[in-house]
């Protein structure tokens, strides 16, 4: 009985293979160029869709609309071609994002590929961008290994800094405040036991030690924790003037609420991802005042203000105050590199490495394929998330210390 079944089965197996072969042998016809094809794979569903839907995807859409409304991408000869978008959903799966980028490069033969969201996914596709020669303008990937990656993948660009940048900037700000006698030299830290929290807390320990701070409380909690009362109580008793939480959005919101209930008002309150969401400022109103986090914007930058307004009109929500503007900036860099050097990927990559660009961040020039001139710390001041660190950078607002009382 089994051989009969197997023979039948084999026949079907063969048919399936033939179908498979036919499906990826589909020809892509050469045609007169009427558009510039730009593709990307992004997490539209699954656990990563929250972050991708705030920092990355709206900016891709806004940029494509801005460019096409202005007649398209300009080429060196002055002609303009509209952008044709090819978009895939990676469903928050690493295997899916790898295959989608292979499809964009080998099947769709797009002119440029925009990177996915997240450190892990940017690394997953980096070898492919490199193999196919596409420049990779990675924004939503905070990594201390960027200098190493640039050596490995020459056309990769890392625009959001590494964990040490953020914690060094914070330590610098706290040192300045401690020297001025505004706070004591003790910090209490909690961090989420997941990629972001671990990267940041591992970087923070040496940063604070070098700055002469004593870490009096340092615990890690599992992602999804909802009750922070015990940690807040311990931090209250630790005698530290600064409380730092490297948290994810749900916890950032929860800690803000529970600190108010516990009347826990440290002189420095620094929270993680989510603090820079427009909704955070809107929900917490006056109570957001004085709270610090990663990122921040320069309110005196007119181009950035115009970008924020346009983002809100087109997308229907304000951009977040950390990665969004850097994402839009990366697209403007690509646009200007194409305008100067055309569609040759090699030439565009060279321009991205060495050129100077005028973007929503002002004048931008990469150092060793990395954006180093960034705002690493911000603070809510009068309803705006204002950049306060690094303290020695021009345009940094003075931090309000101590943090005002809860209302």
């Amino acid at each position, binding site marked *: *009985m*089994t*051989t*009969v*079944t*197997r*023979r*039948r*089965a*084999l026949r*079907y*197996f*063969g048919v*399936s*293979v033939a*179908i*498979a072969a036919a*499906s*990826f042998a589909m020809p892509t016809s050469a045609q007169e160029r009427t558009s510039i094809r730009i593709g990307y794979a992004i997490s*539209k*569903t699954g*656990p990563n869709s929250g972050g991708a839907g705030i920092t990355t995807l709206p900016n891709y859409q806004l940029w494509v609309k801005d460019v096409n409304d202005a007649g398209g991408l300009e080429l060196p000869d002055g002609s303009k071609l509209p952008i044709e978008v090819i*978009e*895939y*959903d990676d*469903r*928050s*799966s*690493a*295997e*899916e994002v*790898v*295959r*989608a980028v*292979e*499809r964009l*490069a*080998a*099947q769709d033969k797009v002119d440029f590929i925009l990177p996915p969201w997240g*450190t*892990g996914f940017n*690394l*997953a596709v*980096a*070898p*492919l961008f490199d*193999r*196919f020669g596409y420049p990779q303008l990675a924004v939503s990937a905070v990594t201390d*290994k960027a200098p190493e990656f640039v050596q*490995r993948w020459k056309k990769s660009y890392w625009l959001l800094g590494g964990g040490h940048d953020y914690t060094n900037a914070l330590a610098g700000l706290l040192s300045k405040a401690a020297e001025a006698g505004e706070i004591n030299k003790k910090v209490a830290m909690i961090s989420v*036991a*997941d*990629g972001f929290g*671990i*990267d940041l807390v*591992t970087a923070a320990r040496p940063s604070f030690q070098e700055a002469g701070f004593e870490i009096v409380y340092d615990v*890690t909690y*599992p992602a999804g924790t909802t009750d922070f009362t015990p940690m807040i109580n311990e931090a209250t008793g630790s005698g530290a003037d600064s409380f730092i939480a490297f948290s994810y959005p749900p916890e950032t919101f929860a800690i803000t609420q529970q600190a108010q209930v516990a009347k826990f008002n440290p002189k420095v309150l620094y929270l993680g991802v989510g603090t820079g969401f427009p909704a955070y400022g809107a929900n917490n109103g006056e109570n957001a005042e004085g709270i610090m986090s990663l990122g921040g914007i320069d309110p005196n930058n007119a181009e950035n203000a115009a970008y924020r307004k346009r983002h809100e009109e087109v997308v229907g929500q304000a951009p977040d105050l950390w990665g969004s503007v850097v994402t839009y900036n990366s697209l403007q860099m690509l646009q200007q590199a194409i305008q100067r050097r055309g569609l040759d990927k090699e030439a565009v990559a060279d321009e991205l490495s060495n050129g100077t660009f005028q973007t929503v961040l002002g004048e931008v020039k990469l150092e060793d394929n990395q954006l180093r001139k960034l705002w690493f710390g911000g603070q809510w001041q009068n309803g705006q998330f204002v950049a306060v660190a690094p303290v020695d950078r021009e345009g940094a607002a003075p931090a309000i210390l101590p943090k005002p009382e809860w209302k």
Partner: protein
Amino acid sequence: MKTIIGFAVAAIAFGLLALAPFYLDAYGIGLLIGMTGYVTLASAWGLFSGRTGYVSLATVAFFGIGAYAVAALNETLPYPVILLVAAGIGLVVALIVGLATLRLAGVYFVIFTFGLAELIRQLVTWFETTVTGTLGRYIFLPLGPEHIYWQLLALCAVTLLITWWVDRSRLGMALRVIADDEVVASHIGIDIARTKIALFVISAVLITLVGAIQAPRWTYVEPAIVFNPTVSFLTLIMALLGGAARLWGPALGAIPLFILFEWLSANFPNHYSILLGLLFIVIVFLLPRGVVGLLERLRAPSAPLDQAAGTSAPAQGKAASQEVRG
């Protein structure tokens, strides 16, 4: 004689598939990697679940163990040794889990295996945060997509060979008796627990190796990436569509479904999840016994039922009905 012909045809098919990377572009190879990966996962899943009726959702637990072992060891050990260590870890975990749980019946086992993936993910996270102080790990191995594909193809062949061998061995005989009636089986002296554990361990080691071989493709590994529960569900639905108790059944389910998923995600990226859900419902209602079951039913008028359906059909029916209940 027929067996020899069957082997020859399979060998030629695998030989042709091994040549595919020389003719296909990167996307084609990527597609074959995904497809071969799922054929192997579904076949390995069918080897245990299809033959015992124990529906396991632990696929991604072992898949993730394999991937994480490669990520943890890729800088310290030569690659073949890493694969051996990964297989060894999979084996030990499967033994512990098997000894502890294979006395659970039906739906309790399903729930336990589902929890197992999350348990292992949390254990890895705990270990990484408290002991090593990092979470993500990098895999920089000099392996191109074609190397990953060839390894997967070889593993796929091994999986099918083991399945073929099990079906003809004393182990397979014992399984058929157990699937028919556990009480009878124990009365005639079959060690039920040992038989099930043996099969569970073989299946788990194969699944672990799929994860280990595929991991270098992602460069960066963290628990959220490798312990993605979707892998368990897709494997299960593929094996059930094809017919989990048959040698070629899981492959018959995995190949068309994989191509369909790919087509859906390339052409309907925004409606993928809805279409997938509808598809699952259709499969459960129209093909409760899988493609192979359907073929056998179509054949039934010309051949006596017991001859066409074979003795291992009850196990398959059991697996399918358990899925519907669960």
